[in-house]
């Protein structure tokens, strides 16, 4: 069988004739997609960790004021929330992000020593702290980062705590966290009598009532006893909080800049290619190729660049995310997980970038006059 020439094969041969330029362009779009995969993957992983943080602990509703980052609620509201008939358990908490060392920071929680949220933790050594004592429990990732074990002192904001337990958290946020007795955390944060919010675990859903309806009813009942505060569904709170919004904004903003540069790279390559191959385009037109077919050829080349750049970028992004999930500075916020939807989205963006970048060069190439193109030096 003689060697067969396909349309895609022709496009590939055109790209491969300038190997270095093609490879450099692939690196450009690959880095852009890699940044997208890693950064957006990081922010989504962060969001997912928040969601898992709530779901693994059994929290259905969070009672907070309207400002997520600096939510400050009078601790007296806990008793009012507990009195709501639909509430099984209500527990106050404080959280904050603190530098433990110049290289390591962590989310620090303040819990009561009998909160239901302990149910999501599995102690690998030691056990719970006691209210009123300068004790701390830490996640296993943080313990590894800080090289701490049970009995070791932990310095925080000028105070010393004793590590009494190391736990395996269900999420990266827990595994990288410090949990102190609520009163100790209030002292450390100068929040005496105040908490960041109240986590609520509801009673089982009555038969015949949908979860959505039940949760809405519970929200209304809680907000009725604590006027001025929000009773937010845990899932909403996890996905629509300012930490997550900030992470998404930074990730998408940085990725957009990288993608723009990547698109410019492909556009430049294709424009150069069309210019260099002006006479060849004239030959194609002379032997009967319609302008749309020439356009398709150039667009196919740009799309191949986008596709190959996407594969390269996904590999690079995966490696980047693994690195972020390993580094002590960031491993407390994310786990190195990429969802199939994110990979598909990354590939689609990469291919779309190729198509967009190739559009103008393709249009220009397709609209060259055949005779003018043949005369081109």
């Amino acid at each position, binding site marked *: 069988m003689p060697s067969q020439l396909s349309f895609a094969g022709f496009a590939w041969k055109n790209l491969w004739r300038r190997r270095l330029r093609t490879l450099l362009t692939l690196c450009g779009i690959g880095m852009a997609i890699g940044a997208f995969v890693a950064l957006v993957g990081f922010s989504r992983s962060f969001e997912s960790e928040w969601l898992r943080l709530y779901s693994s602990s059994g929290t259905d509703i969070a009672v907070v004021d309207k400002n997520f980052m600096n939510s400050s609620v009078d601790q007296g509201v806990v008793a009012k929330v507990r009195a709501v008939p639909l509430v099984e358990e209500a527990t106050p908490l404080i959280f904050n992000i603190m530098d433990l060392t110049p290289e390591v920071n962590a989310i620090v929680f303040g819990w009561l020593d009998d909160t239901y949220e302990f149910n999501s933790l599995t102690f690998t050594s030691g056990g719970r702290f006691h209210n009123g004592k300068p004790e701390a429990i830490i996640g296993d990732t943080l313990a590894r980062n800080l090289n701490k074990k049970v009995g070791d002192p932990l310095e925080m904001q000028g105070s010393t705590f004793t590590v009494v337990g190391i736990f395996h958290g269900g999420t990266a946020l827990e595994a990288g966290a410090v949990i102190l007795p609520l009163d100790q955390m209030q002292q450390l944060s100068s929040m005496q009598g105040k908490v960041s919010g109240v986590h609520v675990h509801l009673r089982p859903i009555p038969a015949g009532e949908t979860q959505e309806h039940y949760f809405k009813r519970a929200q209304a009942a809680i907000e009725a006893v604590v006027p001025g505060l929000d009773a937010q569904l845990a899932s909403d709170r996890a996905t629509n909080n300012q930490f997550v919004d900030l992470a998404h904004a930074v990730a998408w903003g940085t990725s957009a800049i990288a993608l723009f540069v990547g698109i410019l790279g492909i556009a430049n390559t294709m424009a150069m290619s069309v210019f260099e191959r002006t006479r060849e385009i004239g030959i194609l*037109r*002379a032997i*009967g190729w319609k302008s749309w*077919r020439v356009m398709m050829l150039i667009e196919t080349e740009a799309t191949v660049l986008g596709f190959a750049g996407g594969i390269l970028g996904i590999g690079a992004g995966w490696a980047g995310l693994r690195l972020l999930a390993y580094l002590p500075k960031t491993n407390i916020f994310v786990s190195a997980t990429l969802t199939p939807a994110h990979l598909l989205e990354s590939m689609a963006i990469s291919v779309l970038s190729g198509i967009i970048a190739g559009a103008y060069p393709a249009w220009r190439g397709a609209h060259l006059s055949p005779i003018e193109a043949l005369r081109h030096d």
Partner: protein
Amino acid sequence: MISPQLEVRNLRKSYDDGRIEALRGVNLTINAGEYVAISGASGSGKSTLLHLLGGLDVATTGEVLFEGATLGTTIDLDEYRAHRIGFIFQAFYLLPTLNALENVQVPMLAMSDSSGTRAERAEALLRELGLEHRLHQYPNELSAGERQRVAIARALANHPSILLADEPTGNLDSVNSARIMEILTGIQKKRGMTLIIVTHENDIANAAPRHIRIRDGRIEP
């Protein structure tokens, strides 16, 4: 009465806002299966006429008719070039990234044939032109005569009814020139195609059954 295959009516082509007139009112008819040579000095307008006949360019005024239908209005120029015309150029114009076999398949990519059919036809054409041992060579690995034979095979790929050759021997030595002319006239006779050759070589022009001379954009009487 049978209409001519090609008819040129008062064809004019000017460049540079009319300051340069390449063709100044050409009228011409060519019947199917004719072998016509067009000669003239450099800049006489002979290549311009060929390009207009082949639908590569459009006239400033006047019209070219193919089988009674006007090019560019009744007949789409791309369709015309794809199905009716086979071009052969002085500089061969092969695509450097493709081997001989692939170059011949390029015009067929615009057709609906399967890739297997395309490849088989390309191979058959190259065999017909004596290039069966050069199928996988790239243009830079072929001699000038071989390149022109590949270009002829490519021109025949889509079964055109008219072959247009613009100085097909211009880059060849005398031995290869004779071989290429032998091939072209052989194809014209065997397939009953119309062959229109633009040349400045008197030997080639005089050997054609019909010889049209162009001077200063006009056909000499």
